[in-house]
């Protein structure tokens, strides 16, 4: 018996929707362990979302419709992006709707509207967050695309399913081009998801926050949607990294048992990835904002090196 591809798509969307808070919780738990604190448990993000959903919404007097629409757009686009990346199967109907470039641009929509919402209220924090976020993303996006372009040159496709299929068929081997690109990708993913050397998701100190500054005025269900989308984004970036650089074990038959096994394998990869990220986060301190161009520039350089290595060595 094989599952219909629509069913697989549905499973994947539900996974992204309902497992991403657990992944965020897992990251928090590991981080607490490493820093010698007691953790709130893996389930804390679910409790946070549920609490926010129950609360009333408080809006600033001059908030416009852009501010009220943004959480829905952010959530909708993030879910859409979650349906595009192959996690446990390459037979995804949504996969063909958007390739890697479109996927990066989907996240650009999220950022665009979050930044606009930050400027809508007219406080200095919102503008500051928007300005900084757009600055970081404008440097991160080219590096991000360069990193994944190396993979798409190697598989001569920008479609994610095709990339996964071609790369996993080739078997496991260490390629210098992909190694460089992977490092670049990790650096960029930390920047894009607002993790420690670039931004601190836990801070509300005015001078250090970037992403939090933009969404400072949100409350209630709006904040729940944005927070949830943020957790999904973190999981999606990990999934993207797995699909692009470690695609082994994604493609395969659509039998329920095989699917379940691959799901377990995927979750294991995700958990290991989370630990790696926490190690990086714990080992580094947050950078000054104007050191970031150097950081992102070196990521870009690594990605370019990866591409040059691809053309010269492979």
């Amino acid at each position: 018996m094989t599952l219909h591809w629509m069913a697989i798509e549905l499973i994947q969307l539900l996974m992204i929707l309902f497992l991403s808070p657990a992944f965020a919780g897992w990251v928090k738990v590991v981080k607490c362990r490493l820093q010698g604190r007691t953790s709130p448990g893996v389930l804390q993000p679910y409790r946070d979302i549920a609490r926010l959903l129950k609360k009333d919404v408080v809006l600033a007097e001059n908030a416009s419709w852009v501010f009220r629409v943004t959480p829905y757009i952010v959530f909708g686009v993030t879910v859409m992006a979650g349906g595009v990346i192959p996690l446990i199967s390459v037979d995804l109907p949504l996969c063909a709707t958007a390739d890697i470039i479109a996927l990066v641009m989907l996240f650009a929509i999220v950022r665009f509207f979050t930044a606009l919402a930050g400027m809508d209220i007219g406080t200095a924090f919102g503008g500051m967050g928007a300005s900084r976020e757009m600055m970081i993303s404008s440097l991160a996006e080219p590096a991000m695309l360069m990193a994944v372009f190396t993979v798409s040159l190697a598989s001569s496709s920008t479609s994610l399913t095709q990339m996964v299929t071609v790369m996993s068929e080739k078997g496991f081997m260490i390629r210098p081009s992909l190694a460089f690109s992977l490092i670049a990708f990790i650096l960029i993913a930390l920047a894009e998801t607002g993790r420690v050397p670039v931004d601190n998701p836990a801070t509300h100190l005015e001078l250090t926050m970037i992403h939090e500054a933009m969404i400072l005025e949100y409350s209630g269900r709006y904040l729940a949607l944005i927070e949830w989308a943020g957790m999904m984004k973190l999981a999606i970036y990990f999934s993207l990294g797995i699909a692009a650089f470690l695609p082994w074990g994604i493609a395969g038959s659509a039998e329920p048992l095989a699917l379940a096994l691959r799901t377990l394998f995927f979750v294991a990869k995700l958990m290991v990835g989370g630990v790696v990220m926490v190690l990086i986060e714990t080992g580094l301190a947050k950078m000054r904002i104007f050191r970031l161009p150097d950081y992102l520039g070196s990521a870009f350089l690594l990605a370019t090196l990866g591409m040059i290595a691809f053309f010269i060595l492979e």
Partner: protein
Amino acid sequence: MPPLDVAGFSVLFLLGSALLAPLLSRYERLLIPAAFSSATLASLTATYAGFAAVATGSNGAATLAMGLPLLPFNIRLDPLAGFFLVVVGILSAFVSIYSIGYVRGYLGKRPVTGLVVFYLLFLAGMFLVVLADDAYFFLLAWELMAASSYFLVMYEDERAANRRAAFLYLLVAHVGAIAILLSFGVMAGLTGAGGFEGYTFDAMRSARLSPGWGAAAFFLAFFGFAAKAGVIPFHVWLPEAHPAAPSNVSALMSGVMLKTAIYGMMRVAFDLIRDFPWWWGGVVLVFGLVSAVLGVLYALMQHDLKRLLAYHSVENIGIIMIGLGLAMIFTSFHLPVLAALAFVASLYHCLNHALFKGLLFMGAGAVIHATHERNMEEMGGLIHQLPWTSALFLVGCVSISGLPPFNGFVSEWLTFQALLLSPALPHPLLKLLVPLGAALLALTGALAAACFVKAFGVTFLGSWRGHRRKEQIREVGIPMRLGMLLAAGCCLALGVFPTLVIDWIDLVPRQLFGGEIAASAGGYGWLWLTPYSPERASYSAPVVLLGIISVVAVTFLLLHVRRVAIRRTPLWDCGFEKITPSMQYTATSFAMPFRRIFGFLFAIRQQVELVSPQNHPEMADTLNYRLRVRDRFWGWLYEPLSELAFWCARRAGRLQTGRIQTYLLYSFGTLIVLLVFLG
């Protein structure tokens, strides 16, 4: 009726309207709707003609019984001309509707007849440039376009800055026109035909140029058209002239007049010369990349809404030229399918840019109409006063930032795909360097998004910073809204149904160099855009749009099952005194990180001055901050050039002693020399 006749009718209609318009100059209230409605009608007719010419692949030509005895006017409507006829016509139609409302704002302030007449002539000039099929008529139409737009830029001539901008515009337009004339001269001279025979495009097509002369002809034309298109470093007139014109004219100049220059490049390279080495395309590609990146960076530094948009035109012309350069490279290596992909990307971006830039300039015009203010730092919170304008302007912002599912994304995506096909090139260096172009394009896209967050955020969001009372600001009238609404609708439609558009455009590259992508682009059906092959890449805008809308709808419904009260409260001011509008982030502060990172590209002068009361030097009470960000190219290229011109003029000026005897002596000397040479 063949498309060529329809197009000719539309041009005659415009010229006739321009002739008749002065008759109504005493009834301006009547003149405005009458003239702009006929402009709308003529533009729609031309659009239809162009659409039909591309769809049917017709290639009608005609020789008019006009012009000089030995130089009759030739016109032709082939798919390339037809495509650009659509680009010019569709935006002109929308802008003409918009103008009915916009120009009414000048009533009682200044006479509008001149504006109307030159507007109509400007449209006619652009249509004729596209239709012309010989060098003489082309240049005549080119001059009609340049001269009429000069008077439009000069329209608000009481400001010295506008006069200066118009002069600069005229100067650059003519330097460019001379280069184009020389290029045609080279091509006509080498056709081998005697007399005036070589001046038709047909004669140039059949001529085979030697590589050296071919390069001379191409690069002269490239320089001339690049000066018109505002390619860096020939762009300095653009951010001066486009903002100076009335906004409806700015929309046309930025949206479509620049495209006629792109049309010229395509016509010369792919139709008249045809046979070229790869490095010509390389040069076009490099100019395109530089224009794209620098254009958007300069745009980020602007706080005049229209100047910002004008610099974005430089950026978008750059993106169009990336596609064009790639198409030339692929053609020179005989890869027609890849060339067609790059060419279609370039054409698609021409159409898209016309629509979203037209929309944005119309939006900026609406803001200026409502607030009488151009400086973004004096705006803010307009979304509450101008709900329509702001929503439509947002559509333009999203489109130009290249975000799916709007149109800017499709053409940028196609350009990315073309850049990533570089491994097919036989040249090892190109293989490596072309993907770096993709990185620069990504940088451009991301910076454009940052710039439009700034433009929209500072202008429409936050709270009002200006001096006028914001209660006086009113939403603009129906015709202006309608013009913007139609353009916005097209932005969405072109973004959601790219396969249908590509199916239609495809005949242009097929007719020019025999490459086509429609079969592969629609390989999965109209829902999926798959340039090259489905395995290579695919994108489905309708599914993306539907997916996002359905998730949003489901979330919205689920969250609104339980009614939750929304409480409106004053802003949290951190326990200090009231928050004032001046505490918001401004356009200058938003761009500060970019200014700091990319500062080496600008000439920045920053002054901070503490002003203290007279008797208390230690107690400063005012802080003056002055910031001046200038285009580096003024200092690098234009000031030395103008210095040189002045130096030569001073040297030549020594001849002028002011004494009649000396001048007689000069005349005598000249006569002697002429006699010696001619006798």
